[in-house]
């Protein structure tokens, strides 16, 4: 039994009553916001979050307290909650927005108070129709209850919160693309510098963009203290985190685990968690942090689930999603599907990503479907090298955003780990798994 000693962000997800205001209040809801606006200064909350070492849960893993401290002073600053969860195999925010929408609203309000935001926008992925309904209902209830609007809970703090639906584009999870989209434009990432959101963000004003899970931790941190939060985990990775486990395991799902307490092996095989693989199957590879991450092999399952721990073995914890592929999986097909995803979702602004992504997809397709040539492997590595010089990790960036540099991760690791399998496809003129 190696689950978190207690749950922080997912404690209400199995209680259908908690979706509504009464159920949320009955489980301690809005106590933290009350304490924040009535008893604590914004600085005190910022201190708590700094103490907590709350790393952003969206994928980049930047410390939330430090991000807040970089916010430029201005008459108007904005808070935008990133709920555009689209990193393949990541489904934690999907759960949080549908099953604990008030916790998200409360967390967003605490963050808005802490940074002195003039207005809060929750940008929710358009495909989350039920999530949009649940979060809007929560916002409506929170206004009625006095948790949003003028003089919140009788304090001198006033703010509005607006739910904004996305319209389907992976790139909008990138924070500057998200801001463009929120301004009514195509989701084209902005170049940094100068467009660091904390300096020039939404409508040109300083803006903080925080992930859904990140702010969902705030009510707990306000009630229990940042010190308490950082008691869990070690190093930079503190508190708990939702790990989204999918692929070839018996029990896929979201597991809230204490940071740096469990290994990939625990998560995949513990009967309380993944429950192992189908009888007779072996782990062939694991993708540890969304499809932008390089793959890990079966010999790396004892790596601890922590940000620096996974970085140390040349990959990343990213969005906390873990995909397990067993020995019945065709690695060429898996890598091709990921390449196809990136080729489709490139916004098209930068040449290495737009051209490189679609060429990699074409070459991968011809290997999988039987028209591959042996020199295609060098060609693929050359294409990867043109996007990420040296095919290094972490990748050297040749593009405006990190979508492009994420393209080589799967293809390059698949070739490095499973070269024989690629060659077999080429030799046999097709996929040996079909």
């Amino acid at each position, binding site marked *: 039994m190696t689950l978190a000693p207690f749950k922080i962000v997912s404690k209400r997800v199995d209680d259908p009553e908690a979706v509504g205001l009464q159920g949320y209040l009955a489980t301690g809801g809005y106590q933290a916001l009350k304490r924040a606006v009535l008893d604590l200064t914004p600085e005190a909350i910022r201190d708590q979050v700094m103490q907590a070492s709350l790393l952003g849960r969206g994928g980049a893993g930047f410390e939330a307290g430090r991000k807040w401290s970089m916010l430029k002073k201005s008459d108007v600053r904005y808070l935008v909650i990133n709920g555009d969860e689209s990193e393949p195999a990541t*489904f934690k925010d999907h759960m949080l927005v549908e099953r604990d929408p008030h916790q998200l609203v409360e967390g967003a309000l605490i963050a808005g108070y802490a940074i002195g935001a003039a207005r809060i926008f929750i940008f929710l992925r358009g495909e989350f129709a039920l999530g949009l309904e649940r979060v809007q209902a929560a916002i409506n209830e929170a*206004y009625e209850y006095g948790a949003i609007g003028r003089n919140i809970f009788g304090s001198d703090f006033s703010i509005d919160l607006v739910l904004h639906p996305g*319209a389907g*584009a992976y790139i909008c999870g990138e924070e500057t693309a998200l801001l463009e989209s929120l301004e*009514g434009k195509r989701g084209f990432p902005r170049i940094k510098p100068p467009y660091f959101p904390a300096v020039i963000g939404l409508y040109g004003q300083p803006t903080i963009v925080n992930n859904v899970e990140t702010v969902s931790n705030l009510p707990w941190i306000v009630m229990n203290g940042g010190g308490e939060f950082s008691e869990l985990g070690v190093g930079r990775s503190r508190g708990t985190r939702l790990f989204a486990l999918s692929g070839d395991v018996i029990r896929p799902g979201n597991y809230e685990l204490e940071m740096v307490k469990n290994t990939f092996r625990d998560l995949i095989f513990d009967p309380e968690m993944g429950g192992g693989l189908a009888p007779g199957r072996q782990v062939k590879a694991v993708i540890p942090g969304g499809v932008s991450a390089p793959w890990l092999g079966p010999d790396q399952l004892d790596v601890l689930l922590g940000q620096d721990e996974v970085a140390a073995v040349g990959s990343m914890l990213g969005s906390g999603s873990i995909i397990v592929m067993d020995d019945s999986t065709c690695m060429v097909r898996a890598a091709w599907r990921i390449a196809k995803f990136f080729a489709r979702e490139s916004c098209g602004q930068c040449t290495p990503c737009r051209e490189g992504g679609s060429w990699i997809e074409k070459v991968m397709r011809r290997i999988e479907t039987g028209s591959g040539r042996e020199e295609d492997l060098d060609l693929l590595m050359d294409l990867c090298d043109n996007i990420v010089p040296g095919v290094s990790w972490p990748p050297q960036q040749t593009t405006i955003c990190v979508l492009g540099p994420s393209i080589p991760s799967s293809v390059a690791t698949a070739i490095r780990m499973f070269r024989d399998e690629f060659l077999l496809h080429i030799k046999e003129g097709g996929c040996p798994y079909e």
Partner: protein
Amino acid sequence: MARFTPDMETRALAVIELYPERRSATIPLCHLAQEQDGYLTREAMEQISELVGITPAEVLGTASFYDMLHTEPVGKYLVGVCTNIACLLKGGEELLEHAEQALGVAPGGTTDDGMFTLEEMECIAHCDKAPAVQVNYRFFGPLGDESFDSLVEELRGGALDAVVPPHGTLSRVHRTSGIAVPLAEIIEARRSGDLLEAERARAKAEAEGAGGNQL
């Protein structure tokens, strides 16, 4: 129909009010237009451009970037089968093939009776229920060939009307409040010194007793 009905126009105007700049309402209004007409008509894009203060070409430019915004008619039910990595591992591609046969259309196509448009989707964040499907962005899964067929039958027969509204209706819960604190007021407060800091300082001074210097 194509321009907003009076009711929808009222809703559109209320949405615009939520943003400091009207243009931000572009995508929400495109969703509203799809709720009314099932897809984005030329007339709707023209009206949205008038409402948010940009050109019709800019509305089209924005809309054409996004997978969920359709500038051609689609079926009453948009059936999206996910084939991204987590679903691929669980048979998503085979399910899509089955869906093509069952509905008699390739991805992107619409059945002759106008009931179904089939799409191959990228990850829809339902990976623990793989292979996953969305119908008008409502989740289903895990599905096999048989359960896919019964889903289609239920949709056809109207048995799922309460769960799956016709294409375009993204959220059936509407905002019940406007903006309570206009930005102008917040800017005014900030400019005359940080309101929160000032009020706290004043409250503190008051709490510390009458001995302080009153200006």
